[in-house]
């Protein structure tokens, strides 16, 4: 092998290495808005596309007002925050979830305006974001339509009412609850934005199990599913507020 060949092979190694290194930074969903999401939502902080962060949802939206989404994080320690966003939605940020004393699992439903990636980004204590997600195909119209409560005009009768059910399953307590709220995006003609801003999930001893920050794309009368350690002190309370200052203060009895 002559010197030229050595140099060539070395160059090949270098380019291979560069390529491998680069792919971990390339958006696997090939979204046109990834760069902008990275700076706007993830503050240009280091990103790892990571299979341990999983979004479950159908691959198409039968009802763009109510697309079911679950986020689940497996085998990832020191989770500080989980942010859900949809790159191509008019309002991209959907939800932020801080699981303090709770499994990193959450289900909810979202409104989408067109086909878009839906992603979960998990910030760990080392300051990096672990990102997972997939594409959702949608015909659209979910964000610019008025809520049913607005259309019917009766939303104020049930505002912030909470219904809930709980189960014991596989050593875990599961709780599902619905909070009555129009969740108006502000994008429908003549209807200002009106949405639940956040709520804390608090156990009977006063310790905050999780904080959930919600944005306009969360579906009307949001329903959440959480898995809670069954030793948690009951009853659980939900304490929060919407962008008009209406308070959420509900106890999950069962």
């Amino acid at each position, binding site marked *: 092998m002559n010197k030229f060949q050595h140099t060539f092979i070395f160059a090949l190694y270098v380019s291979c290495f560069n390529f491998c290194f680069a792919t971990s930074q390339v958006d696997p969903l090939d979204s046109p808005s990834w760069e902008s999401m990275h700076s706007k939502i993830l503050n240009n902080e280091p990103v790892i596309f990571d299979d341990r962060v999983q979004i*479950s*949802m*159908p691959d*198409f939206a*039968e*009802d763009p007002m*109510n697309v*079911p*989404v*679950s986020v689940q994080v497996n085998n990832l320690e020191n989770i500080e925050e989980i942010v859900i966003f949809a790159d191509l939605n008019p309002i991209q940020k959907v939800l932020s979830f801080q699981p303090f004393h709770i499994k990193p699992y959450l*289900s909810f*439903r979202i409104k989408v305006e067109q086909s878009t990636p839906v992603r979960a980004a998990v910030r760990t204590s080392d300051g990096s974001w672990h990102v997972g997600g997939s594409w959702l195909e949608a*015909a659209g119209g979910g964000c610019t339509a008025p809520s049913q409560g607005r259309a019917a005009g009766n939303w104020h009768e049930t505002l912030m009412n909470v*219904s*809930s*059910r*709980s*189960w014991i*399953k596989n050593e875990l307590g*599961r709780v*599902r609850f*619905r909070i009555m709220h129009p969740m108006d995006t502000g994008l429908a003609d003549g209807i200002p934005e009106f949405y639940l801003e956040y709520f804390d999930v608090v156990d009977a001893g006063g310790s905050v199990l999780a904080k959930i920050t919600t944005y306009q794309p969360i579906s009307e009368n949001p*329903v959440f*599913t959480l898995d809670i350690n069954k030793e948690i002190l009951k009853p659980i309370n939900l304490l929060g507020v919407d962008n008009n200052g209406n308070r959420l203060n509900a106890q999950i009895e069962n």
Partner: protein
Amino acid sequence: MKIPNLNKPIYLLLQIFLMICLVQQVLAVEKLDYQLEPEQIAEDTYVFIGAKEDFSYENGGNIVNTGFIVTEQGVVVIDSGPSKRYGQQMREAISKVTNKPIIKILITHHHPDHFLGNQAFQDVPIYALAETIKLIKRDGDGFLDNLYRMSGPWMSGTDFSVVEIKALVLKQEKIANHTLKYFKFGGHTSADLVILDESTGVLFTGDLVFHNRTLTTPHADPENWLKSLDKIKAIDFNIIVPGHGEVANNIGPIEQTRDYLVWLESTIKQAVEHGLDMTEVLALPIPERFGSFGVLKREYIRSVSHRYPVYEKLIFN
């Protein structure tokens, strides 16, 4: 292993044949030709059997069964298909079977693959149940948007609002040598017309019956649907024409539709009662006996989206 000699004339002919098939298919899509071939299923009775697929650019929405009965007085058409172009090509195909005039169109229900061909028959009285006419007015625009999106160029020129549909009030009518019985059932939508030709024993069920194609539920009332299936089963027929899937001469398609519908409803209801979230229900296994149905996974996802919220409301109230 013995390797076949691909230079043998027989393989060459096979290759040429396959090439021709492929070219024909490509050309059909380019020419927007549905290639409608009427299939005779009984005396005077013909059907056009659609693909067991979802709407697509490739099939142009030809996923539905339509049919016609050639009476001595003229032709009665059952459902007009998914687009103006389909209606026109259907009319042309009918004219190759008979030179009798088309005298009546019957629309089984308000879903777009069954009535959007109406424009091709504007010179003929078109009938549907009164409730179906209301539902077309309510949902027609949305359907049209959706089909232009899904079937693309095949839809050009299709519009439903320009066609008048008359309310069908008769329970039975004699058209020359054929006696047609009309049943107002429901469950797939809130008004589903079932037509029995008593003279031949052919039963057109509309979408109350699917055969080897997964049923759809965007406007379904399963309880009412199951009642309608009982009533359909009690009808004395020889041949059954489902809204989607193959024609049969037994109650198989009725039982199959019931089997899937019962499974679907009980699965979703139980899952909600056991605390499963919607995405977990989407991931549940579908029994093997439904495995060969067309569009299985996609229709299951659609049905969960329609039916899960109904049962969820019950647990929260």
